[in-house]
């Protein structure tokens, strides 16, 4: 069994799964469960927008340039300004402001502080030449809650003590001192809860593999993965594809950072900051991945618009967003052979026998690309039908409509009568259920439609059966070599 444990740890290590020293908790994707829970407490408690959630996650992981600590510097100055403006007598008053979920939006922050904090047309003035927007102040308060409550409140008393000191002397010096303390605090937090080294190693390997190129092909992803498999790293194909999603999204930032280590004028520095901030901000705004995954994970209770199995299939096909519309071949590879590989990894984790590993490694059970295309088409058709039903439930008054629209709605009524799904019996409850799911349904139907079209485009260029057969021998060979030891066990 000890050998098995080592095998599992080797697999997990190669997939970027680290274990937290001491507790042995698994850490996937560069963060541990504590970090995810700390962040969720702040985001859910304040009901933050997606943009603000992404901003906060970015600040926590350190994806801020040129200086990771800039948001903490801003926060310290914002707290000093609030201490002066609101006459906060003690750290406790500042904690109350930081923990107040009613101060989570620009509008709420404006309403509360526009009379008490020095401000101009653009927002609060936090010091000489030190300013932010009202939305920026709302974000900084979310960051304040994070630094106060991080590690499930382990440092709460210490940080409250620092705020006490700031409240006693809320001047520039006090703010600068607090900024340094907060920077050390968050840096220690990252060391404990964000094991980025395996991710960094993999990105360094990808950068080396691409040798300065910023564009890559589906076959580049496959070739890179095979190289890692041969080198004994054995990362999941999906994991590698995920890294390429990030690489593609951030490729335009690459190379631009080197100049920053050289001394630059303050103006140039500010310019860089704006560009990078804007670029990272765009990345966040244009980052639909969490939305799709979250849509499926948080699907509202109610009528069975999607069954559990349908949601799982959609999650699997859309997990590499935006590749489902831009790189259908990688999407198929991940859904077919990535699935086989995660089956092998799960099998090994649970202590499965060698015979089964060998059997799985042949990819005999892999879902063919044609079958996946057909499934994607069926799911797209189902979602489109559900959208028409949503319209029929919403539009009761149809007299003024053109005949074509009326016909579509009538067809939807017929579909609705044929549906044999739980929750579809009571029309009033069904209408409420569809209303609750409408936004999610629209987006999911649109994305699944785009997947369907991308797959059709791929099939025209490259017959799917031939592509599948060729890929199967590549993946089977890679699995057979990489898992030979376990298969023979």
């Amino acid at each position, binding site marked *: 069994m000890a050998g098995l444990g080592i095998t599992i740890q080797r697999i997990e290590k190669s997939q970027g799964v680290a274990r937290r020293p001491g507790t042995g908790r698994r850490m*996937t994707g560069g963060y541990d469960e504590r970090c*995810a829970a700390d962040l969720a407490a702040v985001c859910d408690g304040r009901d933050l927008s997606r943009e603000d959630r992404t901003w906060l996650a970015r600040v926590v992981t350190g994806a801020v340039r040129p200086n990771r600590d800039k948001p903490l510097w801003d926060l310290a100055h914002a707290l000093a300004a609030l201490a002066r403006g609101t006459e906060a007598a003690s750290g406790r008053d500042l904690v109350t402001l930081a923990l107040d979920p009613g101060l989570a939006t620009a509008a709420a922050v404006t309403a509360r502080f526009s009379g008490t904090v020095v401000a101009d047309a653009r927002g609060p003035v936090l010091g000489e030449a030190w300013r932010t927007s009202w939305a920026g102040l709302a974000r900084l308060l979310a960051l304040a809650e994070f630094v106060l409550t991080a590690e499930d409140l382990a440092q*709460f008393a210490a940080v409250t003590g620092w705020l006490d000191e700031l409240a006693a002397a809320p001047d520039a010096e006090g703010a600068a001192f607090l900024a340094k303390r907060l920077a050390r605090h968050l840096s220690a937090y990252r060391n404990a809860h964000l094991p980025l080294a395996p*991710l960094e190693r993999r990105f360094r390997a990808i950068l080396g593999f691409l040798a300065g190129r910023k564009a890559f092909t589906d076959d580049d992803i496959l070739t890179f993965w095979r190289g890692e498999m041969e080198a004994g790293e054995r990362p999941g194909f999906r994991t590698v594809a995920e890294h390429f999603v990030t690489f593609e999204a951030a490729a335009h930032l690459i190379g631009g950072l080197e100049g920053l280590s050289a001394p630059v004028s303050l103006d140039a520095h500010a310019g860089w900051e704006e560009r990078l901030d804007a670029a990272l901000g765009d990345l966040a705004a244009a980052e639909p991945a969490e939305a799709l995954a979250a849509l499926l994970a948080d699907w509202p209770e109610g009528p069975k618009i999607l069954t559990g199995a349908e949601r799982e299939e959609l999650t699997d096909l859309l997990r590499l967003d935006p590749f489902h519309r831009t790189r259908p071949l990688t999407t198929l590879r991940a859904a077919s052979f990535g699935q086989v590989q995660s089956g092998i990894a799960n099998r090994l984790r649970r202590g499965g026998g060698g015979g089964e590993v060998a059997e799985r490694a042949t990819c005999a059970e892999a879902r063919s690309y044609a079958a996946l295309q057909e499934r994607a088409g069926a799911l797209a058709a189902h979602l489109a039908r559900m959208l028409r039903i949503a319209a029929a439930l919403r539009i009761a008054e149809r007299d003024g409509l053109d005949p074509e629209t009326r016909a579509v709605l009538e067809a939807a009524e017929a579909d609705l009568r044929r549906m044999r799904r739980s929750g579809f019996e009571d029309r009033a409850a069904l209408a409420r259920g569809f209303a609750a799911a409408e936004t999610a349904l629209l987006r999911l139907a649109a994305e699944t439609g785009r997947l369907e079209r991308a797959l059709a485009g791929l099939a025209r260029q490259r017959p799917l059966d031939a592509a599948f057969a060729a890929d199967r021998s590549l993946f089977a060979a890679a699995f057979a070599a990489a898992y030979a030891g376990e298969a023979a066990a």
Partner: protein
Amino acid sequence: MSEDARLLAEIHAARVLTRARPSAARPSHAALWAHANREPGAPVDLAVVRALRSDPEAARRYRTLLGAQAVAHALLAAAASDGALTRRRVGPFELEILEGTPPLLILRGPDARMPRRIEAWLGDEAVRLDLGEPVDGTILLALDPAVAEADRLGQMLRDPACAVFLL
């Protein structure tokens, strides 16, 4: 390149982190903080009170918040004692129960910052009372048996396992 790889790793972690959706701890920090700052006798959030009684993890988080803003606190009586306790230290403060009718709680300490309230915890039970103004560095509180909370505070303080927060 190494700086590029680092930034990509940070962005990647931020991406997957925003996708992870663990359920947040309940009650929220804000709700626990509001409870920690409540006026004695003021209406309370019953969901919070229930959580503090039934969920040891919520109680632990609450006491962390309370301890951080307390003038002084002690989770146990410092000195072991046989039988009921009539004297204990909480940080720089000394609490003494003077038996009589009614018993009196005497709180002495440094003049600099006297607490305004006391909250005592024993098991899953809590009592919070206003302390009143100090006179010559001493606060006197009658533990009147006719006032349920004051009476209960007196009984709890006599138990060495009682946690005391001076707020």
